[in-house]
């Protein structure tokens, strides 16, 4: 099916060329679409899904326990569909948590792991590698399911509202906010389409395709990593891993995406 589709997309490319000079822009766009389509087959993120599933089951930490009893919101050990409903409010921590902050909670509680060094470590470090693989695995277990993020609890609505305010927050020498690039419909940076995140469709384009394997760096990126690099390019200081800043912006994107189908883990340029 994939290759059928690819061929169809390539036909579009050819057709765009046939139209002639008018369409340099269109042919570039179609060519890029064909490229992205071809990438979908054989996503190296699958390698991380497998290793994440192993890490999930592996005993570790001072308590020599696995994460198999971790409650991601649907009850202890329930992974299927959990990612499509995150971030969410958790009673035990009295906090709204995204996947990665919740995994840290589970590592602390179930395995007795001190997570402070993990929070501090860079995304390329071995300490973060487990979380990246786990996010590939957990997100894969929501593939094909609809985003269902609750904004019913006051803390969930608050996190969403804080995220929206952050989205428009302009600062630094470049006067950049998330909204600078993601606040209009139909724009792109270089050749990358920029989803309009305040809309449901735009938010879903981003939210339902991360975590993702990035071919440009040959790396698997978790959502936290994605957000971290957005703020880097915004010329902001660094968002602290799993801090409320990161969860707020995730709540904004996820809350806007409700009803869209998860395609995780994705593959990106």
């Amino acid at each position: 099916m994939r290759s059928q589709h690819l061929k169809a997309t390539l036909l579009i490319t050819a057709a765009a060329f046939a139209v002639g000079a008018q369409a340099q822009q269109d042919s570039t766009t179609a060519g890029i679409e064909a490229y992205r389509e071809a990438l979908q087959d054989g996503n190296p993120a699958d390698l991380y899904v497998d290793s994440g599933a192993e890490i999930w089951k592996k005993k570790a930490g001072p308590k020599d326990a696995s994460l198999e009893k971790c409650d991601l919101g649907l009850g202890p050990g329930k992974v299927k569909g959990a990612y499509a409903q995150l971030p969410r409010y958790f009673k035990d921590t009295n906090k709204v948590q995204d996947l990665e902050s919740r995994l840290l909670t589970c590592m602390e509680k179930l395995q007795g792991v001190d997570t402070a060094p993990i929070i501090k470590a860079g995304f390329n470090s071995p300490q973060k590698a487990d979380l990246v693989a786990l996010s590939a695995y957990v997100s894969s277990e929501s593939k094909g399911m609809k985003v269902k993020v609750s904004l019913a609890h006051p803390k969930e609505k608050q996190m969403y509202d804080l995220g929206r305010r952050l989205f428009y927050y302009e600062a630094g020498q470049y006067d950049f906010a998330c909204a600078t690039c993601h606040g209009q419909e139909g724009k792109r940076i270089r050749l990358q389409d920029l989803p309009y995140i305040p809309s449901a469709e735009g938010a879903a384009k981003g939210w339902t395709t991360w975590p993702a394997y990035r071919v440009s760096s040959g790396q698997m990126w978790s959502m936290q990593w994605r957000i971290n690099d957005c703020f880097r390019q915004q010329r902001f200081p660094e968002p602290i891993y799993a801090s409320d800043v990161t969860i707020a912006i995730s709540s904004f994107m996820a809350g806007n995406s409700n009803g869209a189908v998860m395609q995780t883990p994705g593959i990106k340029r």
Partner: protein
Amino acid sequence: MTFNKKTTVALSLVAAMTAAGTALAAPPALPKDGSWGPGAGNATFDAMMQSGFQTRGIANVERLKQDPTQELCSNPVTAYSEKNAKLREQLQAANEATIKYPADGKLMGDWKNGEKIAQSGKGLTWSDKAGEANGGNCYNCHQITKKELSYGTIGPSLYNYGKLRGNSEEIVKYTWGKIYNAKATNLCSLMPRAGAMGVLTEAQIRDLVALLLDPESPVNQ
């Protein structure tokens, strides 16, 4: 703009093929009074920002402090509201006052260098080092030369910029000012204030002006 529309049509065609797109529910609307919702007032928001960011490399937490222009433009509801008309006028004048012209009066440099600056997206992130030349980031948002296919569309196309406008003294000065501080002419412009914020040097701006206005530049060919 026609070509944006065309792009959108092409994309939505492909999107329609990719997924049976069902309409999604509209996200919650922003409060009309310009507030952010009961839980996202100033105190809570500031506390989140302070605890959520850390200095890394040259990107220090001081950067989170907003100047009045940034503060006004950070609220899509009130940025253009009636009651802020006066404030907008004041801020625009303040931005205009930042524009400095070179002492030697030379506003046009080398377009070839300008092209390199326009291509570069480097500068001022926490992975950049202090003292390194910053890039102009121009292609991120603008079409400039015909040859570079990888250009953004957040800003208008600058292809034939000089050919369409000529390079009278007035146009050269206007162009310099636009690069130096885009907020002097359009307060909540999405374009960085490259000169006023110290992103680009005078010499770099000179080269960018040449890229746009030099008749020899590929922009005008």
